[in-house]
């Protein structure tokens, strides 16, 4: 009956690297958590999965009416404003929802954290993974909008996965950091919605980056979502984009992800005692 398996449990202190072997061994659980989050998200709702597209769609209509029609904000001249705004909103909504759900994910799954062992990062990551389905659905709606407005798919479309990965890394990095902080400090619960609300204004989601003065453009790239929003439009609609800004954002998203991972792994040691 004796297997060759052997494991030692002892005190751990300080920074912990990620145990890739363990994550790989239990990868099925990550899938299950994503599947569970998808299943329960729209249970007992009337509109079900339609909520995935209602949110960016209504936001697009409101911004088109108030910002574009009334306030005269212009998008990129190559595409109608509605398509311009919806392309940005699809990835922004994914990021915003991922961040807000993952930040609260550990608290919401308290009983699992205190009753059973598994790689804890699966909880915020699973929540974000489940959001990818919403992104796919809203990209479907974007395709319909593009058909309606006769906007052709750009030849850079194959680059889209890069920006999706960038958005996932940014959301995951911040989501892990905030969810870990949330265990000790419930302040996070109040701070994150506010950050998200402000975020849409410092990210060129509903306005084009060219209205930002030249000297600040690279600075805006430090907000990882700047590059992802620009990149989404660049890859799908073929609107002009600066690789310098997108490059900075992509690099920042990697940094945010790695530091989020380390912060999470470090704070993880006390989750069960503090939560």
């Amino acid at each position, binding site marked *: *009956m004796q297997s060759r398996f*052997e494991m030692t*449990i*002892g005190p751990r202190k300080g920074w912990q690297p990620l145990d890739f072997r363990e994550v790989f061994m239990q990868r099925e659980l990550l899938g*299950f958590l994503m599947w569970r989050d998808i299943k329960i998200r729209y249970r007992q709702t009337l509109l079900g999965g339609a909520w995935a597209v209602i949110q960016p769609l209504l936001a697009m209509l409101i911004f088109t009416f108030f910002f574009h029609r009334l306030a005269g904000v212009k998008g990129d001249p190559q595409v109608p404003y509605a398509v311009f705004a919806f392309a940005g909103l699809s990835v922004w909504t994914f990021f915003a929802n991922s961040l807000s759900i993952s930040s609260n994910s550990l608290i919401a799954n308290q009983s*699992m954290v205190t009753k*059973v062992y598994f790689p804890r990062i699966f909880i915020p990551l699973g929540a974000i993974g489940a959001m990818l389905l919403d992104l796919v659905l809203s990209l479907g709606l974007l395709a319909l909008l593009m058909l309606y407005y006769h906007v052709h798919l750009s030849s850079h479309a194959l680059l889209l996965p890069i920006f999706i990965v960038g958005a996932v890394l940014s959301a995951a990095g911040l989501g892990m950091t905030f969810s870990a902080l949330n265990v000790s*400090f419930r302040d996070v619960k109040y701070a994150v919605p506010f950050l998200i609300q402000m975020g849409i204004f410092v990210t060129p989601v509903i306005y084009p980056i060219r209205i930002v003065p030249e000297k600040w453009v690279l600075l805006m790239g430090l907000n990882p979502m700047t590059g992802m929003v620009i990149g989404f439009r660049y890859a799908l609609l073929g609107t002009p984009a600066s690789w310098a800004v997108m490059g900075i954002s992509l690099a920042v998203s990697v940094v945010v992800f790695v530091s989020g991972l380390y912060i999470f792994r470090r704070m993880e040691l006390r989750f069960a*005692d503090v939560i």
Partner: protein
Amino acid sequence: MPPMIEVRGLSKQYHFGLSVDKAGNARELMMRALTAPFKRREPKERRPENTFWALKDIGFNVDAGEIVGIIGANGAGKSTLLKILSRITDPTEGRITLRGRMASLLEVGTGFHPELTGRENIFMNGAVLGMRHSEIKRRFDEIVAFAEIEKFLDTPVKRYSSGMSVRLGFAVAAHLQPEILIVDEVLAVGDMAFQKKCLGKMSEVSKSGRTVLFVSHNMAAVENLCQRGIVLESGHMIFDGETKSAVRQYLALTNKDGEGEGHEIDLSDAPTRKPRYAPIMRKLELFTANDEPAPRAIQVGARLKLKVHLRLPHVVPTLTFAVGINNMFGQRVLTLNTLCDPNLSHGPLSGETVVVCVVPSLTLVPGQYFLSLFIDFGAEQTDVITDALTLTVLDGNYFGVAKPTFSGVFVVPHSWSVEQVMEVSLPEVAR
């Protein structure tokens, strides 16, 4: 063959100061983080009054195929030990070596989501406990049959009775195939028949050569299932050996404060009161026949009068009080409840209040009993003290005979008659 579980010098320290006062405030943490580089680093020592050792220097081995029971009062460190073994929290000192695939069951149905159906939750719960998708699929029918929920497989678990979801949770766990299984108090729930089934499953597990660590308050279950017992008391291991002696040790511990004391018990800071309850029950007094004070022991069949002194925090329109009496094996043998008295009436109450319960004749067989006290002001429980005191029921002249036999749970007054129906002449009998 090296032992399956090796525990060496295991200790766990908790700091309550940090999580309650300081860590609750992000501003202070930020201030500390900002000022830390400018402060001389103090030796990493925390004030002892803010810390306590939930476990101190625990060491034992468990061999393959052994079932070991871990017993101890509330707060003795059982749960902490299980949490460390299950890797939920790290020890402060010491080391554990596990030589086998381990699964732990600290709760039935971990990861269950009320919105998911039974079928979906089987997969979810299995995955959380470390089963592979293919493994769950293969054992799916067995799990469903064991849980007896065939008809409700596609109903959301939120519509299940509590018994059903417990059965489902245990069924998934029972079909894990770990080499080491760690189980906590699972049997505290579910009906008798299902508890029996669970116990059967667990001894089956150990017969197949797997190792089981079992924590329970149910002494009968521990005695039935385990060959060996480990007794914990306030973080220390005070006994490790044969189960019967371990159970005796544990009972001796719980009774220690019950011997030779007066008839009054101070409840204001009872150790077994859950921290979330306010100390409403202040004092308990025991009396027997003719209102004589009873120092925690009465004779079988004698009158028992309990007088509980309360301090009510506000005006209470209606109050429910209950006394639960458990026997040595943790089985509830009797419940006394104000709801059972049709003649009870009281106006609004506040401040100092006394609740009196009279049992004209307590007919439990001689032995030791644990009394738990419950009070509520309506919907939820307001104060609960489990095992508030040990009551000894002494041998007595209940039946009015010289040598009574007491076996079973209760005595009841009863009479016999024996008479001859037909006279037969003696020679006929002899023939």
